[in-house]
């Protein structure tokens, strides 16, 4: 298979463009979408690629209304904290009206939001709120870590009949990675095994997958074999994938940048405790961001993110 080196930022757009070619119902709009993606305007025209007024509520609401009535909108809501202006539309409408209407409507739409450390812009731009949506019924949530998954999950998200929140980790967006050519669709709900190991499972998503891989290298030097699981889809969560790894290693460190309290890691830890308790050789450990807004100041922003040494230390502790 031929692969190209592409940034995740571009891979998302490539995935979108392929789906727009494939399905005329796919449209995209957002604050500056047509300015930033002029190549899409040239190929698909101003009807399908639009700039909007600066108004997240109506962007998300318009997407939901259009999705229920025949279009497949992909909307870019920029930074995750701006989603708070669109919560009503995403959570109450897109997420609930399928169920509430007795299944009369569905909402095939994708909302993109950037998040995470890497730009030193502070807590009103950087806030990992993906678990808010995991907690909201009717909505799927993905957060890829590789360029190939940015593209492949975007394609799946667009084809999905449900509203999908697509979280893009800013820290990853501009580092090129391998992307297979062609119609490479990555299924939603399937975790990826990034590294095989036998002593401990490091379970993560987004930029901390890379930190786990680095931690695994540190651990290897000490004779600890760490497996790294990339969840990439937070809802549905690949329970079987998580459990098969933990049943093998008997130990789990769950890692994410989002704050720990009621985060995705809490759910993963609960699943492990409920379904693999008898196989556990040590308690499940969570390594996460603190219960604080990320500061703008660069060193504080970086310290917010679980780093390889912290992850390795946790793994070492439970492997001792």
């Amino acid at each position: 298979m031929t692969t190209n080196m592409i940034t995740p930022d571009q891979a998302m757009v490539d995935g979108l463009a392929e789906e727009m070619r494939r399905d005329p119902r796919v449209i995209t709009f957002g604050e500056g979408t047509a300015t930033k993606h002029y190549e899409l305007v040239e190929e698909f025209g101003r009807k399908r690629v639009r700039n909007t007024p600066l108004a997240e509520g109506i962007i998300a609401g318009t997407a939901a209304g259009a999705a229920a009535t025949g279009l497949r909108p992909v909307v870019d809501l920029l930074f995750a904290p701006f989603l708070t202006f669109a919560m009503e539309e995403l959570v109450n409408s897109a997420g609930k009206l399928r169920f509430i209407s007795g299944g009369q409507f569905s909402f095939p739409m994708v909302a993109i939001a950037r998040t995470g450390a890497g730009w030193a812009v502070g807590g009103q731009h950087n806030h990992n709120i993906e678990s808010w949506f995991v907690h909201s019924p009717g909505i799927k949530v993905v957060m890829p870590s590789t360029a190939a998954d940015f593209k492949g999950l975007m394609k799946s998200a667009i084809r999905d009949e449900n509203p999908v929140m697509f979280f893009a980790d800013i820290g990853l967006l501009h580092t090129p990675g391998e992307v297979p050519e062609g119609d490479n669709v990555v299924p939603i709900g399937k975790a990826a095994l990034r590294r095989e190991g036998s002593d401990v499972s490091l379970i993560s998503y987004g930029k901390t997958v890379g930190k786990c891989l680095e931690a695994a290298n540190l651990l290897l030097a000490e004779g600890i074999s760490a497996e790294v699981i990339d969840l990439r889809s937070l809802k549905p969560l690949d329970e079987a994938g998580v459990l098969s790894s933990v049943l093998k290693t008997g130990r789990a460190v769950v890692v994410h940048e989002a704050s720990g309290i009621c985060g995705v890691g809490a759910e993963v830890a609960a699943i492990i405790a409920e379904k693999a308790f008898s196989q556990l050789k040590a308690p499940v450990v969570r390594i996460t961001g603190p219960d604080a807004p990320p500061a703008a100041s660069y060193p504080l922003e970086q310290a917010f993110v679980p780093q390889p040494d912290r992850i390795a230390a946790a793994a070492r502790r439970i492997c001792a």
Partner: protein
Amino acid sequence: MTTVESIVDRSVTQKLETMLLIRTFEEKSAELKAAGHSPSMCTSVGQEASAVGVISALDERDLILTNHRSAGHLLARGADPNRVMAEIHGKATGYCGGKSGSLHISVKEIGVILTSTIVGGELSLATGVGLSLQMLEMQGIATVFFGDGAATEGIFHESVNLAAVWDLPVLYVCENNQWQAYVHRKETMRIDHISEWGARYGIRTATVDGNDVEAVAAAARDAVAYIRETGKPFLLETYTYRLRGHMEPDDQAYVDKEELSRWRSKDPITALERKLVTDGVLTATELAAMKETVRKKVEAAAQFAITSPYPTLDQLTAGVYA
């Protein structure tokens, strides 16, 4: 330390000096960003007359709410350039200890409060500030700076309507700079003046040439006098232009060249310099000396920011809860 009193009712030469300070400060920040010294930030180059004109009409009782494009408002109100620059650099000596960075700098001691980089965030808070001023009989008025883009958020309309029906002492200042990040204002609304929207909610409004500092100051004085007398809100639109990009660096490839050069020729600072020299208010030598003073101040701020320490890691979770 600059006191707020010293900046009230400034003379026109003082206004020019403040505008020069803002311009020089922001160009320096952009230069430092380009050199890799600091994260990105938004400048208000081209809009200095709006900040200086409005703020010169306020006094020490008044409270100011602002947004991501705030350096002009902060400096016009008398903030210490060293500490603003340090905050932009995320340093411990910044006004918010480096936790804000450039985008949400508040300086309570000079009445610049509750800065939000969520577009429209400041509009949602201004009514509450107005309510406190009204109910606690604090005398001052709440002045809220926001952009033409913020006016397309629903919260703008909710804010103005509530201020109207509750008679809140809020001065809404829409800095209509024709841009909303990478989208031209005309792509987002069928009207040209945000004051038209304000008027539909039953409040007093005015639009002023935002590049003429004396015109802005006069319009703001009228608005402030009206609010102090009636307790009711007022919307002042300063019609201006964002001469640099949205966020540094920005090649402005998406900007119409003709429009940009038309507005460049209306640069509020060059126009005022020319006028003051022609009118004999200021000699060329005095102007040069003024620029040198400003340059030195800004250089000192840059040095202060660069040499200041970053916050210590215990600050990661300090101050989240009261």
